[in-house]
């Protein structure tokens, strides 16, 4: 399973996108290169979801949006119950769901 998720950097204006787009949201250019995303960030907002969609065998999921240290934002699962707006998190990649029996990799946020 892939252990890294990459960002997409516009080769004209430098803006880093996540997820992937074919046209830059800032300047409209079309050339991108993969780039590493930082593994540290700050929790912008979060929720504890108790009504889960089909396909989960847990009772609740902690979900959040993190602003990475380079300003790029990502959505993911928060692996702590003590969530606070503004808390520092370490960003890792792990199995976030199984779809059709296959594990799916995504961002997970750990309290630091």
């Amino acid at each position, binding site marked *: 399973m892939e252990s890294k998720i990459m960002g997409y950097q516009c080769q004209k204006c430098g803006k880093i*996108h*996540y*997820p*992937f787009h074919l046209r830059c*949201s800032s300047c409209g250019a079309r050339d991108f290169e993969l780039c590493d995303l930082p593994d540290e960030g700050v929790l*912008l*907002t*979060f*929720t*504890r*979801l*108790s*009504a*889960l*969609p*089909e*396909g*989960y065998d847990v009772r609740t*999921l902690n*979900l*959040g*949006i993190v602003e990475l240290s380079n300003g790029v*934002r*990502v*959505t*993911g*699962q928060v692996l702590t119950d003590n969530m606070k*707006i503004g808390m520092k998190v370490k960003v890792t990649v792990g199995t*976030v*769901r199984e*779809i059709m029996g296959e594990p*799916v990799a*995504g*961002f997970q946020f750990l309290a630091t």
Partner: protein
Amino acid sequence: MRKVAVYGCGMNQFGMYEGGLVQMMAEVSLAAMDDAGVDKVDAVFVGNMGGGILNHQTGIASALVDCLSLYPAAAMLIENGPASGGAAVSAAFMAVASGLYDTVLVTGGEKMRTVSPWEVTDFVATLTHPEAEYIYGITLPALAGMFTRLYMEKYGVTAEHLAKVAIKNHLHALHNPYAHVQLAPVMEAILGSEDALVVNPYVADPLRFYDLCPVSDGAAALILSSPEVGNFKKPPVFIKGIGHATDTHTVHERKDPTDLTAVRLAAEKAYKMADLGPKDVMVAELHDPFTILEIAESEEVGFFPKGEGHLALERGDTSLGGSIPINPSGGLKAKGHPVGATGVAQICELVWQLRGEAGKRQVKDAKVGLAVNLGGFGNNVVVTILAREE
């Protein structure tokens, strides 16, 4: 461009429908045709999001035309998430305004109670970004929960404000025979009492059960035409402005995740086209599948400054009898939210309000109405302005 007006409305009581999706949509279509006094149409525009997934049926527009024996009328389906209905109205408006068709039927419908709650949740969650949101278990309530938490932090909105939206809309719905939920909760039971966590459990905290709309079957229909075509049984209610705008698919890519930029931009376009402003609007139907969205949208359409919608709610401005009643129908919150039907049902309510046919929930002497139909979590929004006068 020809002037376009609504001449007929039809709707069923949202909730649980025993028959099939197409039959349900056909029944409200006939009600709208009877209301306008027409027996044939040139085209049928259908709003439906999930026929293929929820009801294992595709080609809904063709099936509807057949059920009503309206062939050879043109027919097409518009799938635009929870804004399918508003988008279908917009497409029908374009068709009549351009002169392509004279008389058009717009029918929105959704039959959601055929599958389990977790299947419905998953169906709606397929609106989210497949790689950057959906895989995490993100659902629409989850996005709304995260949005609400930021709104509370930034603007001082409290759980009581959210509950007040719910209670207000449920009270409005008591006067609407088409509303799914016909009872009104009290604050003490859903927030104060010892049983509140059982009666009103957290769904996507800080959002609780009473902050969310129910899951409903339902359908609504309209007849659109132009005064140039001729006279109809009912007086015209004019479509004065339509604004349609989009935003990023993922919520995390928005500059400020507490802004509903597409609502603001769509409203600005609709006001400009109608040559009207927020102060002219006398009644509004705002897309409130989550209580917070009514507050946020009331700000984005310009009724109140950003961050002050909850204060207007507290003052009673948005209740029936207030300065700008919002969701006299009960809104999605109490009327129900059969996704493809919602945008059409909002226009039905405004037409009834502007005709003075809204019974005990009538906004006195309403002349101008505005509807916000929101798709995704605000990434595809249709704003429609209706008026009694040309």
